[in-house]
């Protein structure tokens, strides 16, 4: 262990270790101090970062004056203590423990499941090869019930690292240490097979296991990798650092790295969902639409794509792609073109896409999925406190005394961030969960407010009402740092808890209690997600949250602030670099002449002075034939947009559609040309997580077949549209990004390579970065003050009525990512969740004469789908919820495309539907699958 500079400031304790004078710092244990001084003491149950448990007794040392030996992993040295780890007595116990454990291993030898297991390492070190004890005899059977994890408890040494991993680190509470004595055994829940337990397959236990009793399935633990590439997880905004273990250009397995956002933790997607990149469905050749094949609104079955498309050379495909765009630009003009980037791409890719659209297409019609995600949150944040980014990082926020999680299910959608929040509750923080659905997060909550969908403004205004009624607001903060408080006071008068309670479905007392808790906490943070933003009143929802923070002064301090949890791994970054129709990089308005001049000089061209169209606006313009040419890099609007029948019809009306992707997505079916692109581990790039951490993704493997890196493809199109770009690698683009984004100007590529993760704002080279912004209540607004914007309750755009009596919500689920392009091509994730399901309250289900697992038909004014039901008592009555990842029952066929007037975000979280009993034969569409050779 390298000297930890943090420890060096702590008080030192001097003691003797094997006769040498040694110092321990802070709360270092003997084992830690020994490691730091290169003294090896065997240890098995101890894992750095975990609570030491001292059960294996391999690390016993003799302390002068003590009757028995002491476990060095648990014991802190005291001044003058004399410790021996290498004398005969200590070594006798150390070796005996290893011999005892080894004697019960399969064949009393090396782990058959893992190369270089920790037990093997120590056994070798001490020359223990032939234990003198008989094997215990009976052996637990292998449990191979889980698609991702093999459980071979015959190699288990009962060190309980997996229990601590599951219970104390990730707080998933699945693994237990049951029975007693020699029968003591690791169990999942109530001794279920792992695959049938509540295990969420985060794999923390696998990473923790010192013997290979828990390993990734299919024996990949026995493969010696060619190389280990340090990179970042491609899925959500948490931004976990990880390593790809590569052999023969194949990623064999993934391990968590000690990143600032994940502390070596990962979730099922990050750890086991990487194999989509090796799926045989990957696009490996450019494709051009066959002549005369008509476009319709119907989806094209990927199995039949060759009926619609023919293979082409890159040269031909790129020429074709650019030519189509050039023609439209020439005939209909720049405004007839548009581009969609993707929050899965890197900062460099996003930057180039927006630059291509702005300088090559000549329009600001460029947007991406942020529009469907946090557009309303960002709008409200910019309007009130001048910055759309989070004020505090998750790692800091999870030390708050009060943590509000509203409109978000981090356990499913930001699983690793959720673990830190759960850790907080174990430490005594109060977790307040506000959402219509009782997810697993609510199990850890001190207060769970299961509100009726769409009533957020009512509830939040009522909380403000309580705070003002009870005089709990922070007058000093309001006075010194804000404007417009009077308007809030006036506005929330009408929202007493008693009045809103029956509509929200929350008792007034609970509302009061939570308001008091939040207002009076020393430190308090609000995390929110799509449940806040994806409403026609999404901006209002966010305004209320911001107002709550401003009136109580709960912002701008350690563990205190606002954190809209970013969904995509790089939605923060792609927005930062200007993949938005109304702003250039760093949120500089396209309508501001000075700004525009700056970018015109940076990019050496003239720029469109008008705000461009947003995602849904683009679809309407395409539908109306105002936009005729579209370039899509990575997005999948034929699945992700609301009211899909409309969106798909629009896509089919395009004169020229260029799609750049890694799979034949639903959107590809409407394309004129398809460019096979690179997946995350196939390229370098920077990605900005929800915490404003800019992190370096490194290439681990090469793209399959003729697929190309996106950076190259974008440039090829750009250069065919009259631009003259010569970016050799991501690093070159990053250099330019630094010029375009003052807030990232100080981040150098070299520093990223060295530190992996750097937080902005970081304006000057060498700055430390600012993990907490809005410090001392100073906001990046014109006058440095935060603004209150009152919000009045408006109802969702489409309320349930006699014809459509049930509320329909779309959401996500742990195992699947958005439109399923990646995760549905992952063997493990697909095995765990192979198809769509409708989450419904069991009593509601019974009322349709159905039982869980039966087929239900969901119909809205816009579409109809059928899927299997899943009874869930966490779901309130009169509401159904569905993940939108499955094209055989695409939730977005149902959703409403009504927009929030400010954020232009559609109301994914509320529409009216009717339900009826369905049947498998007539209603259900089943997915066709290419058989994957394993």
């Amino acid at each position, binding site marked *: 262990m390298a000297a930890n500079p943090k420890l060096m400031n702590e008080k030192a304790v001097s003691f003797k270790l094997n006769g040498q004078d040694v110092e321990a710092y802070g709360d270092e244990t003997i084992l830690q101090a020994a490691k730091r001084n290169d003294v090896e003491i065997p240890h098995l149950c101890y894992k750095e970062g975990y609570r030491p448990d001292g059960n294996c007794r391999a690390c016993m040392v003799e302390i002068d004056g003590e009757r028995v030996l002491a476990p060095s992993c648990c014991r802190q040295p005291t001044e003058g203590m004399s410790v021996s780890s290498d004398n005969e007595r200590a070594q006798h116990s150390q070796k005996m*423990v290893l011999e005892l454990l080894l004697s019960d291993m399969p064949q009393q030898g090396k782990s058959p499941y893992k190369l270089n297991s920790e037990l093997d390492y120590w056994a070798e070190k001490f020359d223990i090869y032939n234990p003198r004890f008989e094997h215990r005899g009976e052996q637990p059977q292998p449990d191979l019930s889980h698609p991702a994890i093999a459980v071979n408890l015959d190699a288990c040494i009962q060190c309980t690292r997996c229990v601590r991993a599951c219970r104390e680190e990730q707080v998933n509470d699945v693994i237990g240490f049951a029975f007693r004595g020699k029968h003591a055994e690791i169990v999942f829940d109530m001794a279920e097979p792992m695959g049938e337990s509540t295990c969420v397959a985060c794999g923390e236990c696998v990473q923790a296991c010192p013997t290979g009793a828990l390993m990734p399935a299919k024996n990949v633990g026995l493969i010696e990798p060619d190389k280990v590439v340090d990179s970042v997880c491609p899925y959500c905004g948490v931004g976990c650092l990880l390593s790809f273990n590569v052999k023969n250009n194949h990623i064999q397995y993934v391990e968590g790295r000690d990143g600032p956002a994940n502390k070596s933790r990962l979730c099922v997607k990050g750890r086991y969902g990487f194999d989509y990149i090796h799926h045989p469905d990957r696009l490996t050749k450019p494709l051009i639409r066959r002549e005369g094949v008509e476009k319709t609104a119907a989806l094209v079955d990927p199995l039949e794509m060759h009926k619609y498309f023919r293979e082409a050379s890159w040269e031909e495909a790129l020429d074709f792609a650019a030519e189509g765009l050039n023609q439209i630009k020439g005939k209909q003009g720049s405004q007839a073109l548009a581009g969609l980037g993707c929050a899965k791409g890197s900062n460099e890719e996003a930057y180039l896409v927006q630059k291509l659209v702005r300088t090559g297409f000549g329009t600001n019609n460029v947007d991406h999925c942020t529009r469907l995600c946090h557009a309303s949150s960002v709008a409200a944040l910019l309007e009130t406190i001048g910055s759309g980014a989070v004020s505090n990082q998750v790692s800091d926020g999870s030390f708050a005394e009060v943590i509000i999680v509203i409109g978000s299910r981090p356990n499913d959608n930001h699983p690793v961030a959720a673990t830190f929040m759960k850790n907080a509750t174990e430490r005594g923080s109060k977790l307040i969960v506000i959402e219509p659905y009782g997810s697993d997060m609510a199990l850890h909550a001190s207060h769970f407010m299961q509100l009726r969908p769409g009533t957020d403004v009512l509830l939040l205004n009522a909380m403000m009402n309580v705070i003002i009624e009870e005089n709990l607001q922070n007058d000093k903060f309001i006075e010194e740092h804000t404007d417009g408080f009077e308007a809030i006071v006036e506005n929330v008068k009408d929202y007493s808890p008693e009045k809103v309670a029956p509509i929200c479905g929350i008792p007034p007392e609970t509302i009061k209690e939570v308001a008091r808790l939040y207002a009076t906490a020393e430190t308090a943070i609000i995390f929110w997600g799509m449940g806040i933003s994806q409403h026609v009143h999404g901006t209002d929802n966010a305004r209320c949250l911001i107002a709550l923070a401003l009136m109580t002064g709960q912002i701008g301090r350690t563990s205190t602030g606002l954190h809209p949890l970013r969904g995509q791994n790089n939605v923060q970054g792609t927005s930062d670099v200007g993949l938005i129709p109304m702003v250039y990089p760093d949120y500089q308005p396209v309508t501001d002449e000075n700004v525009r001049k700056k970018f015109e000089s940076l990019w050496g061209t003239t720029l469109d002075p008008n705000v461009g169209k947003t995602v849904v606006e683009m679809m309407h313009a395409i539908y109306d034939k105002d936009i005729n040419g579209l370039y899509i890099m990575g997005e999948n609007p034929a699945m992700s947009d609301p009211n899909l029948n409309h969106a798909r019809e629009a896509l089919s009306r395009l004169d020229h559609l260029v799609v750049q992707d890694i799979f034949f997505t639903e959107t590809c079916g409407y394309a004129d040309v398809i460019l096979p692109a690179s997946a995350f581990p196939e390229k370098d790039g920077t990605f900005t997580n929800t915490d404003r951490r800019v992190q370096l993704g490194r290439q681990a493997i090469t793209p399959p077949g003729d697929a190309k890196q996106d950076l190259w493809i974008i440039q090829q199109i750009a250069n065919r549209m009259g631009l003259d770009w010569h970016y050799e690698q991501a690093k070159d683009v990053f250099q330019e990004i630094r010029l375009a984004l003052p807030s990232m100007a100080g981040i150098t590529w070299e520093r990223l390579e060295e530190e992996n993760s750097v937080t902005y704002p970081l304006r000057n080279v060498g700055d430390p970065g600012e993990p907490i912004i809005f410090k001392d209540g100073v906001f990046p607004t014109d006058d440095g003050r935060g603004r209150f914007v009152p919000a009045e309750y408006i109802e969702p755009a489409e309320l349930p009525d006699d014809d459509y009596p049930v509320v329909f919500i779309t959401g996500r689920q742990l195992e699947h990512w958005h439109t399923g392009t990646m995760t549905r091509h992952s063997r493990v994730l697909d095995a765990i969740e192979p198809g769509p399901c409708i989450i419904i309250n069991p009593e509601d289900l019974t009322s349709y004469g159905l039982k869980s697992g039966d087929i239900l038909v969901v119909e809205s004014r816009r579409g109809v789908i059928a899927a299997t039901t899943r009874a869930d008592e966490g779901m309130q009555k009169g509401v159904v919820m569905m993940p939108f990842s499955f094209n055989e029952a695409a939730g977005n066929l149902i959703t409403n495309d009504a927009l929030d007037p400010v954020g232009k975000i559609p109301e994914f979280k509320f529409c009216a539907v009717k339900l009826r009993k369905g049947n498998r034969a007539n209603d259900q569409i089943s997915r066709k699958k290419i058989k994957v050779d394993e």
Partner: protein
Amino acid sequence: MKRTRGKKGRILGRVMDQHALLQVQELIGKQPKTRDMLIEHLHKIQDKYHHISNRHILALAKEMNLPMAEVYETATFYHHFDVTKEDEIPPPAITVRVCESLSCEMFGAKKLIEELGSDIDKKHIRIQPVPCVGRCAAAPVAVVGTNPIEKADKASVISAIEKKELSDSLPSDYIDYNSYKDKGGYKTLTDCINGKYQSEEIIKLLEDSNLRGLGGAGFPTGRKWRILSEQKVPRMIAINIDEGEPGTFKDRYYLETDPHRFIEGTLIAHWAIQAEDIYIYLRDEYAGCRLMLEKELAELQNNPPCKLPKIHLRRGAGAYICGEESAMIESIEGKRGMPRLRPPYLAQVGLFGHPTLEQNMESMHWIRDIIENGADWFSSNGRRDRKGLRSFSVSGRVKKPGVHVAPAGISMRELIDEYCEGMLEGHEFYGYFPGGASGGILPASLGDEPLDFDTLQKHGCFIGSAAIVVLSDKDSAKQMALNSMRFFEDESCGQCTPCRVGTAKAVKLMEKEEWDKSLLEELSTAMIDASICGLGQAAPNPLRCAIKYFPKEFK
């Protein structure tokens, strides 16, 4: 609750079995659902349904907002809980537990188990060999349901079953609250509270009396109180009546005769160290005593001699290890009885994280007498320069087994001759366990050594809870050592390697005709040096003694 994954979870979703939930809610009633009540609630399910099914575990987990894994691991840790899977046939409603520990084995437990096993209707009754049930003076002992049958034979056991005598009853003749009070009971307590004594004075008195912890460790009681009184508040008190060391039954003896004496002592401790709540942890095997304590504590609380603290009576569930002080604390907190690593000591970080005075019940039994009679009264007893009284639980080959209160420092021979009316007819004194299974075995040649704390260490033994098992020429030390090691193997909590694996490997080695003495010695050294708690550290004592003192048996 969380959703089960896999196909089953996808189909079934997340729905609670309402029937099981109602059953569990009914059993819990208005009692608290805090974590520390888990074992109490598990008892309710086991008592009512004679087993604990997964459905009930899930319902209980939901009701208490605990992960089901934590409920499951706790339930399966304790031998008195029969945890069954969904499709598993529950165990028979009647369980006959036959003790197979030291004295009972000497008096024919094996034969009894065999006879009962072959003769009994296995559908309705099961026979379970179990460790010491604390009635060694009347070996062999069987427990039908909770009804203990002393000097059991097949006929008496079957008769109890037939007559449906399945429950233990109140002890027949004990001093109840009113009689205790009538005879001056709780006067000393009220004197303390009313200011007749200062707590410092009482602590000093205890220090002078030389009273030591009588659970086995022998830590000076006065010093313990002093340490506690200096800790931060709140402070807790936990009284250990998890008497499980094979051969020990003195606590039961005092409970069945004069229960209020220890309660008064405990309340004095509570006053002296200014504690919060009192927890009394009683082993589940003492069902009659539990009835009695429930009744007497209720009487006390209904008509209190003074303002009383909260007194919680907690029920063990069949785990010897919970007699280990920190394991008992864990168990009171509703967890598996896994000993804690120390430091920190319980006096610093104990029950619910608070400084805790943990005392054996008998230690508290003597408090009132010492205050009333003075420190000298207690310390003036003793032989061979030892001080105080010891309650010896004597069993084995003597004419008059039972609890004998004798001076500390008395020798084994004196104890046999003066208190036990000599050896049984036809038996010659051969050796003895001075402190239950964990205290080791001494040969007759060391029968004149003083019996007390600190005197037997040099012989590789200790007196512990003063549980003496007397062996005769009809017994084998080697066999008794194996019996002890099997006991430790069964009762090891499974936490640390030297004990969990060590006891199992030792049993394997000791079951062989020829013992591999050098390997056993190596193993013993590591178990003694490296085990977390006293169980593993003491487990090798009998085997090492057998090798050292009974070489003839190895020829």
